[in-house]
């Protein structure tokens, strides 16, 4: 099995990626029906025959683990064990998948039809498929795709079916179950359903974890779940959730299997189906409940072109290799393994580390389309222009200055060089003239961008929407467009993140002393740790990586003591600083709100709407130009960071959780963030 360590030193220029094959190409030239009924004979784990779901269920219900928990609950509550056992059985019924090849074939047929109209191409790295095929035979496999769209898991199963690989069993949110027929069909195509929250429910946890572990231990099928826990509405990777990762690692840590292979999969959409839906959701327009009829309404998307999809199967990562020297498996020796038990701190921090590194692996193999560069440039231009402050009662469409097409093309070419230098996986057709690439990109995203008179600008109002309404309504329109556009810029953020943090640190720090720059860098990094994927405890590594990248691109000179910006590096540094600016501004808005407006009785539930109102006022008053500050995602991340840093405390008061602000800490954080206060060591030490 090929398993590379995720800990290998990163050298972007050495990054070798596989080539892609368009899997739709063959579908366009052959019968869909024949394809749906093709001979499907996947290779299996150690050549074992597949196991019936009824068998799986009885293994779970008869497991020592489950019996132990049932007896325990029975002792605690006085309930008869038999009744709890039945409850467990019901939970399992509700949860378990019922994989059926016929349903899979139906999906294969239907999806082929849909995919062919929606997408230009679906490209897959076939070498990755081959690696996966080998991994499936050697060890239990866990597939970890990125999560940007509802499409993700259907797409995954579709690909695995096409390449004759074992179909995965997929952890899906219970909300799908609401979609009556579709929910059942998803179940029959390998999904199993878990409740969104079951924190204290021991029985549920026991059934659920035993179900997943039984599949892994016996290598019945690859298990697939989303590390990010939910779809990222912003297209930035979300900080990983550890629950399922802990579960899938357990069979290895307890010696029940020799190894487990984790396979990060990066799914990149050129255009996301849910694009404006997400933006609305982030702005507080509630998410439509998943329903079958809703799905049919969504059929109108079928008329549009969504470009291409790239799916990259990363190198399988061996949990055994990762854990070497990090985990002492002897910790499980002194208790029967069926007794559920919290792993040691070392093991927990190991799992956490692995989670972050896997998400980074997903990020690194995300294919970036030219449009993400254009979106970044257009958004920066938008913020530099009069922007949202021009939301007067009489909006003038010509206020949006935008930039000329030539300017945009020129800058895009410059940016292309920069991201490539940083090791990004950019899919830019070099055989075409840049202007052609730019206009092709824009035509695909004509819902977001407008060209006229040789100038390009973001389309700030939804076409065909209601006429001029209240300023708030107009702001909503602008914000939807900005957030939609930001979701594309966000796709490239991980490439710029570390250099951007450094550029901003240099900008904020009072001197170029390396130590001070590093302190500011760490402060920013710490502040934004809930916003971006920053591996815990890797500040020094990240700093060095950022320095190395900026030195290489000629923007910095770094000596033993000093960090100095070069003259020719100014545009790069300015660009990088601007990338982070919306976030830093947004965090400051949250801080200001908590400082100035938050009442003593602010509940956690009211936090987001309150901050949103506050932000709307700021923008309408012309005091803030970054409507990204309206994003509930950003607001929640900021709150999480402030909670983590001790500037805000949760107080459990009966039914409501209220938020108590520690003004001292908050003020000092705000000032440091605004560059008013030097990053003090003492403060850092507290963080």
């Amino acid at each position, binding site marked *: 099995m090929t398993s590379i360590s995720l800990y290998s030193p990163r050298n972007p220029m050495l990054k070798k990626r596989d080539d892609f094959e368009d899997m739709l190409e063959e579908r366009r030239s052959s019968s869909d029906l024949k394809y749906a009924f093709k001979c499907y004979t996947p290779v299996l784990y150690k050549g074992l025959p597949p196991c019936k779901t009824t068998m799986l269920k009885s293994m779970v219900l008869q497991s020592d683990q489950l019996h132990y928990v049932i007896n325990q609950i029975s002792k605690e509550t006085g309930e008869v064990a038999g009744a709890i056992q039945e409850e467990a059985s019901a939970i399992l019924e509700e949860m378990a998948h019922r994989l059926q090849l016929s349903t899979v074939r139906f999906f294969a047929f239907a999806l082929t039809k849909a995919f062919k109209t929606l997408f230009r191409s679906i490209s897959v790295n076939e070498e990755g498929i081959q690696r996966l095929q080998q991994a499936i035979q050697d060890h239990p496999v866990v597939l970890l795709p990125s999560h940007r769209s509802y499409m993700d898991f259907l797409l995954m199963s579709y690909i695995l079916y096409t390449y004759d690989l074992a179909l995965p069993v997929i952890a899906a949110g219970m909300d799908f179950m609401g979609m009556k027929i579709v929910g059942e069909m998803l179940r029959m195509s390998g999904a199993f359903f878990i409740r969104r929250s079951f924190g204290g429910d021991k029985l549920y946890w026991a059934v659920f974890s035993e179900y997943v572990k039984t599949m892994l231990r016996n290598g019945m099928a690859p298990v697939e779940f989303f590390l990010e826990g939910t779809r990222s509405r912003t297209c930035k990777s979300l900080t990983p959730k550890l629950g399922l990762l802990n579960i899938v690692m357990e069979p290895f840590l307890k*010696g029940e299997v020799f190894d487990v292979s984790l396979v990060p999969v990066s799914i990149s959409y050129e255009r996301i189906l849910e694009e404006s839906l997400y933006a609305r959701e982030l702005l507080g327009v509630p998410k439509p409940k998943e329903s079958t009829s809703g799905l049919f309404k969504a059929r109108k998307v079928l008329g549009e072109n969504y470009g291409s999809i790239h799916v990259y199967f990363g190198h399988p990562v061996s949990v055994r290799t990762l854990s070497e020297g990090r985990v*002492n498996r002897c910790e499980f020796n002194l208790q029967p*393994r069926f007794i559920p038990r919290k792993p040691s701190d070392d093991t927990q921090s190991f799992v956490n580390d692995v989670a972050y590194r896997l998400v980074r692996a997903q990020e690194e193999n995300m294919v970036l389309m030219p449009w993400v560069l254009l979106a970044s440039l257009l958004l920066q231009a938008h913020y530099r222009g009069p922007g949202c402050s021009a939301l007067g009662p009489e909006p003038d469409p010509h206020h949006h200055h935008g930039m000329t097409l030539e300017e945009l093309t020129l800058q895009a070419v410059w940016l292309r060089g920069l991201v490539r230098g940083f090791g990004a996986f950019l899919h830019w057709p070099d055989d075409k003239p840049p202007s052609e690439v730019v206009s092709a990109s824009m035509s695909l995203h004509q819902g977001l961008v407008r060209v006229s008179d040789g100038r390009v600008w973001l389309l700030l109002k939804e076409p065909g929407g209601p006429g001029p309404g209240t300023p708030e309504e107009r702001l909503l329109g602008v914000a939807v467009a900005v957030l939609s556009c930001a979701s594309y810029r966000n796709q490239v953020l991980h490439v710029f993140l570390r250099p951007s943090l450094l550029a901003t640190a240099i900008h904020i720090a009072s001197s170029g002393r390396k130590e001070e720059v590093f302190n500011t860098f760490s402060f920013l990094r710490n502040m934004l740790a809930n916003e971006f994927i920053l591996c815990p405890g890797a500040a020094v590594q990240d700093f060095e990586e950022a320095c190395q990248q900026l030195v290489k691109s000629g923007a910095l000179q770094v000596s033993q003591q000093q960090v100095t910006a070069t003259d020719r590096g100014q545009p790069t540094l300015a660009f990088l600083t601007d990338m982070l600016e919306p976030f830093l501004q947004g965090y400051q808005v949250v801080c200001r709100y908590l400082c100035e407006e938050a009442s003593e009785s602010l509940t956690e539930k009211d936090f987001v709407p309150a901050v949103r109102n506050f932000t709307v006022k700021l923008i309408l008053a012309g005091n803030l130009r970054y409507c990204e500050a309206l994003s509930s995602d950003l607001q929640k991340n900021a709150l999480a960071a402030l909670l983590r840093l001790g500037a805000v405390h949760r107080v459990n008061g009966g039914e409501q959780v209220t938020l108590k602000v520690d003004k001292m800490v908050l003020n000092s954080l705000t000032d440091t963030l605004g560059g008013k206060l030097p990053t003090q060591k003492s403060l850092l030490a507290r963080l």
Partner: protein
Amino acid sequence: MASDGISNSGIPDRQQIAQQRLRIIAGHLQKPLDTSDGRIRALECNAPDNQPSGATTKTVPRRRQEVMKWNGWGYSDSRFHFNKKGQAEFTGKRYRLSGMIMPSLKDWFEGTFGANIQHKNFASAVLSPGAVRPPTLNEAFTEEVRSTGIPYSSDAEDRVFRGHGHCLHEIFALREGKVGRVPDMVVWPNCHNDVVKIVELACKHNVCLIPYGGGTSVSSALECPPEEARSIVSLDTSQMNRILWIDEKNLTAHVEAGIVGQDLERLLGESGYCTGHEPDSMEFSSLGGWVATRASGMKKNIYGNIEDLLVHVKMVTPRGVVEKSCLVPRMSTGPDIHHFILGSEGTLGVVTEVTIKIRPLPEYQKYGSVVFPNFEMGVACLREVAKQRCAPASIRLVDNEQFQFGHALKPQVSSMFTSFLEGLKKFYITKFKGFDPQHLCVATLLFEGDREKVLQHEKQVYDIAAKFGGLAAGEDNGQRGYMLTFVIAYLRDLGMDHFVIGESFETSVPWDRVLDVCRNVKERITRECKDKGVQFTPFSTCRVTQTYDAGACVYFYFAFNSRGLGDPVRVYEQVEHAARQEILANGGSLSHHHGVGKLRKAWMRETLSEVGMGMLKSVKDYVDPENIFGSGNLL
């Protein structure tokens, strides 16, 4: 064939049983060796005149190299080799396999290891005199030993023979004629009092003593610490080999600790008794060695392990002689001091005399075997047998690889009929019963007792086996399984003749982890070999050899083709180290019965805890403050 006689008869005639028993014990030994060195030097020992057994036939002479290999396993006359036709052959006359041809061994060997029997790497036949450094003798000590009349020697061959056990690295070095630090002198005490004198003299002159019993250690316990500056004296107990008395009322025997297993059983057998303690090394390993390593015998289910058999023990230490005051079955007098002695691995003193439980020879003995569709079912069956506490004298489960290995050792069949029957059996199991030849595995059984009970017992075990898909597969398969344990060490020498190196190691593990340990350790070995540049997949196999109430003993064999490796021994050691790590990580023990020696010392602290180590250390500090017993084992 010896055993056939047993299983078909059952005449409860005491004398005859003794004879049968003798034949089993010596099933692999044609006749006791008559060596010229066989007389007893009674000297001033007060051995009783009325010795119940004739101690005149001794297996182990002082000059061991006259009958045994100095750089390999076992008797000089017995070895495997590929004859001119490329067929494997076992030389000599001692064993059931002796003189036989094993036609399928070559194919198995070449196929399993990617080896070629044309590639030869024979051991150097003689020890070059220059290879051994001259002895560092303590003149005063030597002088005083001479005056006691206790035989001693500082001849190079004698010293080299006692400077090693049978770890792979030890034998590998000897085969290449390389000799490291070896004892400077060998002494042969003839009785307990001789030992007392030697230990006193060693203390007086600050000489390092390393007790030597059968020399079958596989834990580097006999290796001389290279940094030891004092004169090292190997105390060879082989001449202390008498049964001093037998007590038929209490069923105990008092025996000198140097006696080797086969002699003990043979001599007791003459009186109609046995100890029933049969470790795989019993041809050569000694009673004192068993005590010092906490040995385990294959029939422990009936007779118990050495700690269960031990009634009384005498050990000579630098502080004096330690022993209990009575011969009782159990006592509550604080922590059992026997447990300081058991497993002390020569670090505290020399075990000189042991009172051991004996049993009348069993009336009837029967081998058996059961084929299971896979290893998992086999383990489940063994677990059930242990749960019902109906384990036969021995029950062992070998995995598929070892089952195939066993088949490769089948001697040439003499008649068409036998080969026809074999074919029929194979057809029945694989085709009719649908067992996959690549997955099936075999449990070998040995029943002992009176005839009726054995048959009853046999039925009970086969009934359990049937519940786990097991099919009775005949006595022959069972017997061959046990034979393998005796010849395996000889086979290692054959492997080494053709660049294949290997070793066995063992552990004990709770029942619920047996399968996990077996799978993970085997796979770890395979993986490590690959990582270390071993070209051909290694032979990595295991068997469950003992069952207990709470767990089992698991035995691993591991061998690989070392051709093309720069430093095969180093690769071997790294892999074995990794395998041990894997065992520990999966909840297995550091050792079930091989002991720690110097090979596994590094893990003692994590095995016993800091305090536990301190306890052992304080005993050592009290008993042997000058570190006279300076083998450096254990701690």
